[in-house]
């Protein structure tokens, strides 16, 4: 695995302003923001799959969209190789689009219901002027459909999304993202809408077709899937990365109390290993203007005085295993 980063994220923040209803906006001077992504920095290396794991509302989907500039961040930098993509103009960004693709969570939503499979899969080729004529278009689409095990491709090319099963749709969505051989793909919970029995097929195809791309950012709320799919895992909580390391490290040697809680809570399909209570208390606090302290403070059973005063930084505790916790900094 090469260690040259393909994506570098530096101090990325995205705050969504909350528009107070009528009177309240007059009455309060304080501006309210949802801190969806709050000062996040990390690298994604070439040929690497980075897993981004977190609960709903932790900002993982927002982060994924920021990386390919489907959303404009509030501050910070995102480098694709050596280009700061946030400094590009709209048209320059469009030229870069083929290099970075996204697979969305819901295959029922992400495919235009009025387009055929052929047009859907070929769209990235067409909008980026990568094909000459219809024959080439059909050839390329047939090729990728075959790779996605949608055979024979002629059977599928002229169908509409509603004529396909959920798994087939998601394979179309993957084909769409991979047909232009991007360097980097954001996969936003690509299998969470599917039955467990069909998930494996999509995941296998994504691994097999990694030759077509270089790196994935794999967003998921399931640690179990990330553990097997990803080379490295980043655990996100309330807009910040809590822990990051190789997937083996994260699963076998979790260093952040939140990661441990997540691992304890992750159900195991084995009735003999029923676990007892999770070591966590309370509920997730509101992401609106969170106080400047450890985000996990209110739920942590080990919290100390320092945790209520200082927001911990993400520090390397050895071998690229990084933790943002006052209690686990070496």
């Amino acid at each position, binding site marked *: 695995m090469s260690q040259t980063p393909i994506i570098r994220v530096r101090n990325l923040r995205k705050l969504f302003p909350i528009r107070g209803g009528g009177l309240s906006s007059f009455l309060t001077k304080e501006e309210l923001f949802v801190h969806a992504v709050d000062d996040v920095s990390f690298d994604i290396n070439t040929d690497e799959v980075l897993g981004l794991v977190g*609960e*709903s509302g932790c900002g993982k989907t927002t982060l994924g969209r920021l990386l390919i500039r489907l959303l404009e961040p509030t501050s910070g930098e995102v480098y694709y190789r050596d280009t700061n993509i946030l400094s590009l103009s709209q048209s320059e960004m469009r030229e870069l689009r083929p290099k970075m693709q996204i697979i969305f969570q819901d295959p029922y939503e992400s495919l235009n219901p009025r387009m055929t499979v052929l047009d859907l899969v070929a769209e990235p080729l067409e909008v980026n002027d990568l094909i000459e004529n219809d024959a080439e278009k059909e050839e390329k689409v047939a090729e990728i459909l075959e790779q996605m095990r949608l055979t024979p491709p002629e059977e599928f090319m002229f169908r509409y999304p509603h004529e396909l*099963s*959920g*798994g*087939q749709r998601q394979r179309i969505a993957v084909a769409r993202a991979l047909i232009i051989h991007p360097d980097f793909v954001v996969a936003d919970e690509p299998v969470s809408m599917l*039955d*467990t*029995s*069909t*998930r*494996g*097929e999509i*995941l*296998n195809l994504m*691994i097999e077709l990694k030759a077509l791309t270089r790196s994935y950012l794999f967003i998921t*709320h*399931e*640690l*179990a*899937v990330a*553990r*097997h*799919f990803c080379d490295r895992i980043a655990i996100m909580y309330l807009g910040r990365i809590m822990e990051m390391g190789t*997937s*083996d490290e994260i*699963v076998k040697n979790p260093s952040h109390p939140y990661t441990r*809680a*997540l*691992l*304890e*809570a*992750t*159900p*195991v*399909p*084995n*009735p*003999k*290993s*029923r*676990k007892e*209570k*999770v070591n*966590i208390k309370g*509920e*997730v606090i509101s992401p609106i203007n969170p106080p400047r302290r450890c985000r996990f403070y209110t739920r942590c059973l080990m919290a100390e005085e320092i945790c209520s005063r200082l927001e911990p930084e993400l520090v390397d505790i050895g071998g690229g295993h990084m933790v943002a916790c006052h209690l686990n900094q070496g």
Partner: protein
Amino acid sequence: MNVLEASDLKVYYHTAKGVVRAVDGVDFIVEEGTSVGLAGESGCGKTTLGLSFLKLLPENGAIESGSLVFEGDDIYSLDEKTFRENIRWSQIAMIFQGAMNALNPVFKVEDQISEAIKLHSNKKKKERLQMARDLLKKVDIDPTMGRHYPHEFSGGMRQRAMIAMALACDPKLIIADEPTTALDVIVQKQLMDLLRRLKAEMNLSLIVISHDISVLAELCDYLNIMYAGRIVEWGEIEEIFENPRHHYTHGLISTFPTVEDEEKKSRFEFIPGAPPNLLDPPLGCRFHPRCPAATEICMQEPTPEMRRISEKHYVACHHPRGDLD
């Protein structure tokens, strides 16, 4: 003693495109004080089966035949009024999928619980509210939160409030339909702990319907595997997980990735193909198009019957795993 016994139950939906045999000859048993899991892919008929125990089917659906016995009494032939007054909610309650939709957004939570009590008892309002607050306390919600509206509750709290509502009339049996789906793992775990605790404390019987067998592994004593409208395997949960005899069951279990594995897997297991359309299920064993062990006999009628593996383990398969025939 069995709390609920259903045999050869058939539930059909009559749609414009034809008859959907959502439940097609199902035997189902819930022993007192146990929790029974019902697993299957989306569209296999598991929710319909759950609803049919409460006779709460949508307008175009009906129980066509079979028998339904609750605590030794036939409830299949009860008329709607008697069923509503004596069975539904007071004896068999349900926790629905998606708590946000099941709670009325314009009423306070404690009022909604008290309303549920009112339908089945003639207690005074004050008494009912007190009961509602006790119930909230039982499901680990601060009783003073009862005065709030559902939208002020988090997803986990709403699901707890739903459980409190199911407990309102002190039922014998609770049917939980995907009780933890769409909840975060930590909340899911807490909820499962709560259900386990309540079951033990109140001597409840539980039916848990889920597509997520890891949830069932945590919660249940027995497991039913449903495929295309039929139960294909039934047994004690540990037995089933250790020694699944149906190829579908094995598929379901092995496709589930686990964090506990020592090694990072490079390949994921999956069951090829998609579940059949219940308008026109395949002949013979309904799983045969996706089954690795299918032979000629599997494609022919009749569909395989449940056969006994042991006292508490049955499977409906011509070539069960582990058999060398």
